[in-house]
């Protein structure tokens, strides 16, 4: 019953996906939450909601990182989304 190896990724891909999920996922989750907080007029409420929603989002992003076919691709996507969120936060804060 253990998972079949042919579907699992190589060492390098795995390292990429783990870092993408843990580090990229964290920064993207925080940036996304902040973006929401600057876009809608309830900044403090959204920031406080982050106390739990950031962790949920982070975990989901960790899982999605593993589901991706390429570790480079998922790093790219997370980095791009992080930049978009950051720019919006920068201009609307």
């Amino acid at each position: 019953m253990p998972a079949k190896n042919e579907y699992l990724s190589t060492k390098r891909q795995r390292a990429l996906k783990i870092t993408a999920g843990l580090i990229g996922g964290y920064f993207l989750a925080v940036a996304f939450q902040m973006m929401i907080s600057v876009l809608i007029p309830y900044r403090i409420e959204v920031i406080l909601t982050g106390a739990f929603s950031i962790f949920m989002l982070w975990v989901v992003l960790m899982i999605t990182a593993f589901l991706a076919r390429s570790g480079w691709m998922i790093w790219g996507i997370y980095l791009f989304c992080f930049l978009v969120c950051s720019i919006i936060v920068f201009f609307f804060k």
Partner: protein
Amino acid sequence: MKLKGLSVRLYNITFHIHTVSGIVISFALYVIFFAGAFTLFKDEFYQWENPASRQSLGKAIDYDEILYKIKQLNPSFDLSEDITIRTETTQAPLVQIYGHLIVSKGRPEQHYNTTYYPQTGTFSKDEKTTVGETLYRLHFFDHIPLIGRFLSGFVALFFAFAVITGVMIHWQNIFTKFNGFSLKGSLKNIWTNAHTVFGLLGLPFQLMYAITGAYYMLSFLVLLPVVFVFFGGNQQKALQVILPDRVLATTKDALVTTKNLKISSLLDPIKNEHNNLKLQYLQIKHYDREDGTLLAALDNTKTFAGSGSVAIALRDGRILSDNLPGKKGYAQSVLPGIARLHFATFGGLTLKIIYFFLAFFTCFVIISGVLLWKEARNKKIYNDKQKRFHHSTTMCYLAISFSLFPAVAILFNAELLVHNMENHVFWVQTIFFVFWLILTIVGLFASTEAASTRLYLFLGGLCSVAVPITNGIVTDDWIWISCAKGNYYVAGTDVFWLFSGLLSLLIAAKMKLKDKKVTESLF
């Protein structure tokens, strides 16, 4: 009814990350849930661990008098610094005071804590007891220096990871799995069913704990970026905006006064107006200055949004901010809401008991997951070395996890057995951790999982039954005497240990019989 499942590739990946994350955090998570389950009742068994507090609450307590008494006994006690008073409850009929000492300018602040026993009117500076505190700190690995808290935070985060991937794996058949429990089939089938069914039953509970636990230990990861981006790195400013009810401004050069109103005269009208609320703690700033403030935190422990606070000016009793239940908005309710979910303080004792059982279900899910991991690898494609590794890992995890049960019972015994010793807390904790280690090592010599389980049930049973006996011998409060005195918190603790001890011994005995039959049928 079938739902749309994952594709073969995604299923295998999800399965793999679920297994790896689960097996890595398993025993740490077991310790967290086991110790945490007892911590839920920390206040309820407080009188058990501290015989000096086994008295009922007398007349109303005068907090001003307590502060003056402290000042008399210890003139360097600083009445102008922040003072927190944890007020008395029926569970723990004593008052705890956390304050500061006067230090010359530029020196680091010095804390001063003391406990006041209202029945005798005496103070006690030392921490006298430790069971609740030890279990509480154990459940976030506070005994591991520096990294313990982060470690437990990441265990919680990866627990969320394991829970969500687990749901993804079973998504397709989630409706049939709900009532798929059966004790038939091979060991692997039994552990699989148990793991899935109990995992599903406890799902909301487990996900809630994973997220709130991660918040408590890793909240700095959420707060730091906010402080950095929105407040230019000024933490104080951030706290004032985010938690305005907790930060009350005072000025440094406010004049000293003796005309401030009495704390009890300020509290009485609030208590009378909200008689369903109970006082939790008081925070006093500038007690002897003109701009002094009193923040009273009150709580109705029977409703979810029942906590709140009110801030009053000490000079004239003016209400500075009113965040009592019913007046709070969403922003003031998020963090208290997390606390209420995590500490189960919104539905009385019944809710705590439900939480306790759900926590044990979770422990069971963790253990069955480990056993399932091993049984699923009991196949020809694995060589002997790999199989030995799977076996010894499982035995090691079981030993660490199951030995916690007798160790906690020993902790309770030790608290009363070395009752009046110097360095009491140190000795009790040493006994607990040393015995936990010894018990773990003993379990490693067991040959099978069943033998190890039986051993720990037997040892745990004996130590548990010893708890009410130790209490009876040391304090003369035997179960029936506590009951007659009406001290149900002490009696309840004793009955719990007696019952769980007898139950464990019974199960251990049953297991023995079953094994004998097997061996008899073999020969």
